[in-house]
């Protein structure tokens, strides 16, 4: 499969035929975090590091489609200078609308295809803004949560449920004031709830400070128990949701619920 054929195949994830990727070594890094914390710039640095280490890196950047127009503005690659040249890097922007009902399972197939085609590392990048984004990133073998200073307190991250999924936390923009304090708060929060808390790394995609440390930590990261369970949970919920959305009675259940024919209980019965 040449590059063009690969790009084409990724446009039709439901018709992808690829064998399941091997579990070892791990190859899929999920990167998530709130808008504006510097995910794309940090991914750019990670990609550069991996390329220098001889990896073939593919990036899948997932962004939500507008629920009103169905369109999407996909601008993640403009922040990544590393991705537009060289044979060993592949970047694809994905709008969620292309993957109705089954973003995680479609993504899974896309990753399998990329690995089968000789890409050695895949990065899934998505804004960590809600439950559906968490599901997207739970496809990954390892999850990097990106945080930054001046974002309010760490309760925000805890509330979103993303912190418990993270195998590693990067506090980006450490050249700005307040980053130390954010890192400390996250460490405290992680220590409070986990036996093997995820490492918290201070770094700056802008100045390059801490990037080597981050790369080293990512490359040698073993998967802690907490995130493994949290990921499995999200994957299961995603699969269940997909089953429901694809159920032949789904449209009827939604309609019946909205026009008062069914109660929620009855609608659920229709989907059993």
């Amino acid at each position: 499969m040449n590059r063009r054929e690969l790009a084409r195949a990724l446009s039709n994830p439901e018709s992808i035929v690829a064998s399941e990727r091997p579990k070892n070594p791990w190859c899929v890094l999920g990167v998530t975090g709130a808008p504006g914390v510097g995910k794309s710039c940090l991914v750019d640095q990670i990609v550069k590091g991996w390329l220098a280490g001889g990896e073939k890196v593919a990036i899948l950047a997932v962004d939500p489609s507008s629920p009103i127009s169905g369109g999407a503005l996909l601008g993640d690659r403009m922040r990544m200078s590393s991705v537009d040249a060289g044979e060993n890097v592949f970047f694809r922007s994905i709008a969620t609308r292309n993957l109705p009902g089954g973003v995680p399972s479609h993504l899974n197939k896309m990753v399998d295809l990329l690995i089968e085609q000789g890409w050695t590392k895949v990065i899934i990048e998505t804004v960590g803004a809600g439950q559906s984004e968490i599901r997207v990133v739970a496809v990954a073998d390892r999850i990097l949560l990106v945080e930054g200073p001046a974002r309010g307190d760490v309760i925000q991250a805890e509330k979103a449920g993303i912190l418990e999924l993270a195998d590693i936390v990067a506090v980006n923009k450490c050249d700005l004031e307040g980053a130390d304090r954010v890192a400390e708060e996250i460490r405290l929060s992680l220590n409070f709830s986990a036996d093997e808390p995820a490492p918290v790394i201070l770094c700056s995609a802008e100045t390059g400070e801490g990037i080597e440390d981050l790369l080293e930590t990512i490359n040698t990261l073993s998967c802690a128990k907490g995130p493994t369970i949290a990921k499995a949970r999200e994957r299961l919920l995603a699969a269940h949701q997909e089953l429901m959305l694809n159920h032949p009675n789904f449209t009827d259940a939604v309609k019946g619920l909205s026009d008062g024919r069914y109660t929620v209980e009855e609608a659920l019965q229709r989907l059993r």
Partner: protein
Amino acid sequence: MPTPLRIVIAKPGLDGHDRGAKVVARALRDAGHEVIYTGLRRTPEQIVRIAMDEDAQVVGLSSLSGAHGFLFPKVCELLRKAGLEDVVVFGGGIIPERDRPALYKSGISAIFGPGTTSSEMIEFLNNLEV
């Protein structure tokens, strides 16, 4: 909703003016398309690579620097060389009338200058057979 087109909006060459490109990107998104914006100062080679990896059906080139006479045909030529001859290319920006025939000849399907309404562009896209 109809299947959205995948459209790359690109700024080729040394040109820092992207207000127009961003307005176009936004308008096409609101018309229900998936728009990939490249950011500033891309080479023709990079733009072709982006069109390929993103599996785009349409590429829009914006130039306000005066270098369209070189850059636009170069993108078209490289697209053909890469086997992407079916990708539709349109242009926009400051493109004088006298330069346009040569650009059309090189493979540019349409040119939208200042004063174009977004509905004109959307109609052009809706009429494409891609």
